[in-house]
């Protein structure tokens, strides 16, 4: 047999009926203890994970098993590996009859957020006007944890997501006289500008 002389312990590859002393519902734990035949690495690495996992009480995962392709794993709703907390905040827009909600964790940055706001309120006429940055009449502001209204875009994205409690897309005209220069830094995201 090829096994001999390789010094491997293929001890758990049983083919017959499970031994009398083993109950069927222990089979699930047995899998996690099996020294899968062959490469040392699989056993070595898995062993550390196994003991850690046993402490955590989760099911052990062998690399690539079950054979669900990695795209599907990443994108299926039941994804344990992608535990991002959802951050829903209310978004109001001046002139819109009702508010919307947006999940900030779904967006990667200010430019993505800008696109989302445009898409959300597109039917309220924000679309075309955003093409021209300077003539844009909207400025996005947000209420932070301290209850202050801040201009969107000043702080790093992650910090913004942390502290944003609600969003408001405000008419620029209301901001005049407050020394605010809504440079539409945020709204640049939705414009056709070469950023290379």
């Amino acid at each position, binding site marked *: 047999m090829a096994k001999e002389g390789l010094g*491997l312990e293929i001890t758990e590859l049983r083919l017959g009926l499970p031994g009398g002393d083993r109950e069927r519902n222990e089979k699930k734990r047995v899998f996690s203890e099996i020294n899968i035949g062959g*490469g040392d690495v699989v056993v070595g690495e898995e062993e550390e994970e196994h003991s850690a996992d046993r402490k955590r009480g989760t099911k052990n995962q062998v690399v*690539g098993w079950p*054979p*669900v392709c990695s795209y599907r794993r990443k*994108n299926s709703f039941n994804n344990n590996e992608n535990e991002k907390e959802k951050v829903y905040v209310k978004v109001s827009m001046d002139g819109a009859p009702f508010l919307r909600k947006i999940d900030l964790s779904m967006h990667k940055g200010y430019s993505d957020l800008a696109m989302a706001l445009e898409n959300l309120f597109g039917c309220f006429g924000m679309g*075309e006007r955003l093409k021209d940055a300077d003539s844009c009449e909207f400025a996005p502001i947000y209420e932070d944890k301290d209850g202050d209204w801040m201009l969107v875009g000043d702080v790093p994205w992650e910090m913004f997501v942390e502290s944003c409690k609600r969003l408001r897309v405000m008419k620029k005209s209301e901001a005049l006289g407050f020394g605010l220069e809504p440079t539409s830094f945020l709204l640049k995201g939705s414009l056709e500008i070469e950023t*290379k």
Partner: protein
Amino acid sequence: MLRMASSFPEEVLEHVFSFIQSDTDRNAISMVCKSWYEIERWCRRRIFIGNCYAVSPRMVTGRFPEVRSIELKGKPHFADFNLVPDGWGGYVYPWISAMAKGYPWLEEIRLKRMVVTDESLELIAKSFKNFKVLVLSSCEGFSTDGLAAIAANCRNLRELDLRECDVDDLSGHWLSHFPDTYTSLVSLNISCLGSEVSISTLERLVGRCPNLRSLRLNRAVPIERLANLLRQAPQLAELGTGAYSAELRPDIFSNLAGALSGCKELKSLSGFWEAVPTYLPAVYSLCPGLTSLNLSYAAIQSPDLIKLLSQCPSLQRLWVLDYIEDVGLEALAASCTDLRELRVFPSDPFGAEPNVSLTELGLISVSAGCPKLHSVLYFCRQMSNAALTTIARNRPNFTCFRLCIIEPRTPDYLTLEPLDVGFGAIVEHCKDLRRLSVSGLLTDRAFEYIGTHAKKLEMLSLAFAGDSDLGLHHVLSGCENLKKLEIRDCPFGDKALLANAAKLETMRSLWMSSCMVSYGACKLLGRKMPRLNVEVIDERGPPDSRAESCPVEKLYIYRSISGPRFDMPDFVWTMDEDSALRLS
């Protein structure tokens, strides 16, 4: 007679050959005689290369000077399950570079599991004036900047299809790089992109492309914008929705239902990300004509699925989650008697206990009720030999049978025996079986059945199965048409591999990981078989830092006429005649 053959006008032969599209037939034609070889190579327009390392770009452009369409595959299939370490290879750039020089009139590029960079996309965009079709399946390495280059420059682009790619999604801007004068879009699939795209840009694009037949949106497109998009393209045959959920608002619902019913040619639906049952009825008007439905990202339970599926008598393809349960599959078998392909994916693959009532019964129902069913992918948690035998008898017309019993080495749950007999029945009855994936507890006997009966089998996937080299030997010596064999965690070692070395040259590739093939055997194979590339993939470090008898982590063997490759990372070694000299 000879004179007749040599004076037969080439143009006539070329015209005759133009009706021959199949690669196998074309290859056969090219071997008849030298003049046919010459004529054929000048008129071959379409090339399929199943392993990008089997041949070099220069060889291809040298032999076939007038190619218009190329399809290339890179990484081994098990890369889908993270078994191939990053950086292994599959770079498309050398191909694009060679084709930029050799095929200025190239129209179509289809790639699967390859590493595509923005540089490659930019080169495509500027090299091929008549470029029409770009299909990237399970590719990675590029960003939305590369897509912008394609959009901006390919005036005649018809298809841009990104299937399950891993894209560095910088922003949704790239879409606006399609010029206002661009109107030739026929198929757009951006379902794998994460960022928001500007819906108004999308609406304008869709509105000005009258030939658009297939539109697959990404998750970020909210359901309330779908209706307007559809109104711009009522001629759509294929639609992939974005996120299919919102609070139920009658105006959104009726708007969407109305728009959908206006798409009289719509036959295929997919997407349904985060779908909620309340919006499902919006598609009811389409059900009678639906032939393909992909609900595999929708957490819809079986009652709602049954309501939907029972209205789809023309359904030919269904991809769904195991929420459908046995009861849903029974309803499917009753309503959808034209079903050809079924895939049932696990909703909770890592859970220790079953979360749904989906067993072998569901598969039995469809095998009994759907006479045209020929392709199945089924994830479940229990199986029996009796069930498999029933399924095989019901459905001898299977061409693709992939069963994944989630827990490795699970025996027949009724008898606690191995599932050898069951899979034996499958290969014995299904004489046209071309693709098979097995699972559960299997001994060498299962492989004896496979080797004996699966004569048309081309692709076989094994995991946690078998007892000894005999199992592998049965497969390699018995399956005459075997092209791809992929194995993980099986107790197969040197003997079967070395005894069947010649067989490996008749196959496209063999993958073995976490098996028991020793480094020494790999070296031997590499030395003896110059037309095979024997790649040892081992992240522990150079294999000769360990004993020759030590098994390698992963092994990828493929036939090649271009010799060993030179783009390997530091954890891949090719065993060849020189390896003994180079490594020791």
